[in-house]
């Protein structure tokens, strides 16, 4: 890259379990809240930025211009362009790569990347038959034609079709896919529970020391992620019943405690050229150096969430690095088993190992929650701040995504 994009900082709403305190907030409301908090933190009210890029995984048909509509509700200059990106759980990091690339090319000087999701306010589709009736009805010109269309209505068609947490091509939920990978990599229940426990403990400690004071803005009276259980124990986690992989030939190890719950929230990150930051006296936390997105054929047997296993070697090889060259590694905790399987696969590939004191040092999705599209931006801002706090260093971020995709990125300070 000709010039590297600087990560100035981030902002997010606290993350909240679906159906709770954000039940009445839409994905757009959440994105507006995250953006306005960021705008306020960096004094961007009335500023025209190069672009704002964000997205949601659970997206209503009305949200075709989600990010642009959100921008119009913020204090940013309405002349700030925006567009939507959707790459499942990779969305929040992929948007950052897009903005960073434009900065690197000199096409924009500063932009905001991020994502938002409301599992509470998930879009409901109607039955295909009902949809055809309604479309025909809207096209009918005569009373007779209207009656004819209505006559095709059947009571069964009135049941809404909720979004499925399942892969379109396999019909398996993400958890079921992950359970298969866990079995393949012989990931134990205890290792998963230990990772989950560490996530809660590390996140709680980060809150205690005020780490999130400049990464998070309360929303609707919520001040902390409500998934966080500072007092959870290995015993409590061990007592939970497995929920995924129960029909597989092997021990079912994945529980509600070592899997991420459905969550509502939004996260954004401010990226800019070094010059833009310097002109505004904004300290640079770190730089987004490079990224690699990969896909695997989960339809024909590859692990659904194992794309980072492919992406990381490509990226590291490009830079002549091994895992030992990284001071911090952030692996999105979609499931504890995913993290453990990914680390095992990297090791098997000869990338090296990640000492536990470098892994997800302020906790990750298991304790924070995981509003799908928001997670990447959360990870990027957190990682950049951690590197800045250390006074420099290099970090690897890895995010798996539905559809057999995944993204990894290198951040340096």
């Amino acid at each position, binding site marked *: 890259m000709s010039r590297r994009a600087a990560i100035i900082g981030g902002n997010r709403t606290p993350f909240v379990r679906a159906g709770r305190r954000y039940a009445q907030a839409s994905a757009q409301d959440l994105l507006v809240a995250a953006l*306005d*908090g960021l705008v*306020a933190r960096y004094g961007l*009210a009335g500023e025209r930025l190069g672009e704002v890029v964000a997205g949601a995984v659970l997206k209503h048909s009305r949200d075709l211009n989600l990010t642009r509509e959100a921008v119009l509700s913020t204090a940013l200059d309405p002349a700030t362009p925006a567009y939507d990106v959707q790459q499942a759980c990779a969305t929040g990091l992929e948007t950052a790569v897009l903005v960073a690339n434009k900065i690197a090319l000199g096409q924009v000087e500063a932009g905001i990347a991020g994502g938002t999701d409301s599992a509470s306010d998930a879009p409901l589709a109607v039955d295909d038959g009902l949809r055809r009736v309604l479309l025909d009805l809207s096209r009918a010109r005569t009373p007779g034609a209207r009656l004819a269309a209505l006559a095709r209505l059947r009571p069964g068609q009135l049941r809404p079709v909720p979004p499925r947490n399942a892969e379109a091509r396999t019909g398996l939920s993400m958890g079921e896919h992950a359970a298969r990978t866990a079995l393949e990599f012989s990931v134990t229940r205890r290792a998963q529970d230990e990772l989950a426990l560490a996530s809660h403990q590390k996140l709680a400690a980060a809150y205690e020391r005020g780490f999130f004071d400049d990464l*998070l803005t*309360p929303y609707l009276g919520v001040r902390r992620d409500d998934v966080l259980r500072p007092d959870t124990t290995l015993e409590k986690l061990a007592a939970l019943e497995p929920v995924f992989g129960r029909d597989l030939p092997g021990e079912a190890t994945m529980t509600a405690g070592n899997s991420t719950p459905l969550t509502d929230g939004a996260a954004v990150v401010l990226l800019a050229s070094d010059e833009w930051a310097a002109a505004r006296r904004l300290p640079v936390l770190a730089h987004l150096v490079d990224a690699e997105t990969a896909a695997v054929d989960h339809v024909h047997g590859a692990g659904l969430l194992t794309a980072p296993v492919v992406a990381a070697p490509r990226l590291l090889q490009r830079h002549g690095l091994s895992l030992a060259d990284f001071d911090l590694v952030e692996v999105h905790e979609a499931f504890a088993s995913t993290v453990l399987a990914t680390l095992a696969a990297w090791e098997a590939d000869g990338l090296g190992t990640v000492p536990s004191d470098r892994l997800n040092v302020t906790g990750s999705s298991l304790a924070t929650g995981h509003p799908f599209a928001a997670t990447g931006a959360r990870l990027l801002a957190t990682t950049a701040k951690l590197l800045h706090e250390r006074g420099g260093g290099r970090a690897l971020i890895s995010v798996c995504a539905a559809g057999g995709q995944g993204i990894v990125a290198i951040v340096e300070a």
Partner: protein
Amino acid sequence: MSAMSDPYGSFVRTGPGKLLAARTGLPRPPRLRRSVPGQGLLDGPAAVVGLPGASRVDETTLWLRNAGVRIARGEEPLAALVVDATGLRTVADLDELLTLAPLFRRTTGRVLVLSAVPATLTDPEARAVQQGLEGFVRSLGKEARGGTTVNLLRVAEGAGTALRSAVEFFCSARSAFVDGQPLVVGPGVPVVRRDRPVAVVTGAAQGIGAATAQVLARSGHHVVCVDVAAAGEKLAAVANSVAGSTLHLDVTAADAPAALATHLADRFGGADVVVHNAGITRDRSFVNLDAAAWSSVLAVNLGAPVRLTTALLEHDGALAPGARFVCLSSINGLAGAKGQTNYATSKAGLVGLVEALAGPLAERGLAVNAVAPGFIETPMTAAMPPIPRELGRRTSSLQQGGLPIDVAEAIGWLAQPDAAGIDGQVLRVCGQNLLGA
């Protein structure tokens, strides 16, 4: 806002309410003239009167003319009456005050008396006479009607720009709730204002802090809005509405002074204005106070201003040349209040802080003052029991509570470069409340 939160006040402004109040002798709080964009300094002519020995009449008249004020001729009603009494030296001279009665009768708006600084006079009679003006002004303030305020400016040797600035402030709608107050106006050289001066307001998420952010933004400041992270949502709304920025900071945290100083130095090249507004109450009778309720109030209201100010003064680049500090005291700190021993201790302590810092800061070209609000319509006073709340409102000469904007306007004035001669003062914004008068 006052209409919403003061039902009695809005009722007596209606036809039937007016009638009832007149018949029964109930208080009739006037509607105060407040600052709006594009407004003139006064909405009518002014008279400037020089009593024997006066030396400030010409310049005062010139300043008012330059501010677009017409000087009255003949017997017309006055929007302001400015009296130069700086030259009165003998008890016999005080008879001259009586000549003001006809002018006072036709003044609705502002009465401003200029006096000498009594402490600088060595002649006992002269000092007595000048001190007497304070009693005159305070009493006249209580007789004034229709939202008219009466204030006293004690003019020090060499006062120039600051006096002009003070005359303008006290004549304007910005001082709507400042009444019966004496203020010393010293010399003081204003620094050249930066293109985009930077102000810091602690406790900016609501109430007086939020209003102060608005007033400072109105005069061109970038306002760094500081509050605890938990108040972040409101804080962001305030900061975005004034095109400022937020800083989530617990002012009592061990690293807060360093964090604030670094933030101001690195991101803004120093602050021009620092408003110590963050404050809490934990009201309880003294014998029932626990250690937490005592110390948390002291830590937020007094400890934080002390520590933050020290850090800003010591940290290179944290303050811009000519920087101003304004501390939010309270008339309850001056007068004391039942159930507020902790609060009053902290708020009186701020007066000591201001007085102690004034001299040393002046040597660096900086200034520090305190503003002491009286009964102000805020979420805090809205939560008071009805009877004390109603008493708080009606025991002022203006017969009503003030608004956060009234306090903010006073802070905004003290923050201006032109107010450089105001230092080490406590300005009450209380509508001449009986408390602590």
